[in-house]
């Protein structure tokens, strides 16, 4: 989408052009989990059509759960960013969100 003549795109998040290492790592984990879950879901679907069984159902549920944790990882990534920048008000806000997501799991 960007041509070479365009200026380098910047982040829409204030002062977040550079991701710290932990944030990059989490970003990689999220990308990988999406790819792996897509593969698991596809394999589960094929298996379900060819030979429906408990295993194919579990495979499908596993793929769904892998996608479902992505938002939590996204929030943790933001937390890592803000901790690295020592933006404590935003760290506190992100921790509140993490706490509420954790509450949902209880």
């Amino acid at each position: 989408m960007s041509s070479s003549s365009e200026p380098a795109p910047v982040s829409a998040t204030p002062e977040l052009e550079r991701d710290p290492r932990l944030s990059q790592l989490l970003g990689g984990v999220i990308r990988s989990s999406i790819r792996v879950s897509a593969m698991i879901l596809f394999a589960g679907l094929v298996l379900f059509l060819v030979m429906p069984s408990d295993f194919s159902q579990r495979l499908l549920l596993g793929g769904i759960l892998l996608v479902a944790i992505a938002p939590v990882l996204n929030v943790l990534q933001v937390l890592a960013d803000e901790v690295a920048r020592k933006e404590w008000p935003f760290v506190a806000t992100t921790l509140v969100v993490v706490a509420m997501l954790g509450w949902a799991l209880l």
Partner: protein
Amino acid sequence: MRILIRVTEYHSAVLSTILFAGTAGLGAGMLGALLGLGGGLFLVPVLNLGLGLPFAVARTLSLITIIGTSASVSVRSSSRRLINRRLAILLAVPSVFASLLATEVLKAGLVSDRAAKYVFGFTALFAAMIMLSRLDKRNIQPKSDADLGALGSHFHDHDTGEEVSYRVRRLPAAIASAFGAGIVSTFAGLGGGLLVVPSVNSWCGVPMRVAAATSAFLIGVTAFTPVVTSYRLGLVQSPELAAAALLGVLGGSHLGLKLSGRLPVRALKLTMAVILGGLGAEYVFFQ
């Protein structure tokens, strides 16, 4: 031979249902990526009315695909640059809190399917009106050294080909819309983007593309709570349909993001208003 025919018939019926769910997911994913919506307003009617799934099950499957859309959009570099993550996290506080509250209300059986459909319809109509009233208004200004506040920022705008900046105004309005999004998400199986995108764009001065990308991030976080609860309540039925819709969503969001940089903002707003108006009227007056 008869057994073989029956097996073939069974498989073709299952296959067509799965393909139907996958195609619906594809459309929902494209909408989600283009407009910052989870695609739930498209998927819930398809699953509920098209496939005859109970509303609660359709709502749950829709929320799962919303998380898929959100995750897919959030990790792509093109949209990551547009997401205002600080604004998203700030708005996640009221939206997740509201979804926790709404989940408890649903668990207590205090909201009927009919009421949930009204919530869906009126929210869609309301959002369509906001969009139509702001078709030609832009919230951006050429990049400058002016104070953009703690939440404002700048980005490269494909429409003008320039670096542009914006300031987030009327934050309480955004917080109120995020709270509403949490309620709508849980009751009606929507991402809540249909509330957040128009209000953040129209009232808070956030450009459309930034509002859509930020909303895409937010809706996944908001949908997490009702999905966890629904899973516990055994509402994640037909995982094969959820999987087909999710795969469709992942593909659709990829397509939508490819298109999003090439579509003008006015067309995006108009498309959103037409879709919201039509579906809102359907659920309020004809369901």
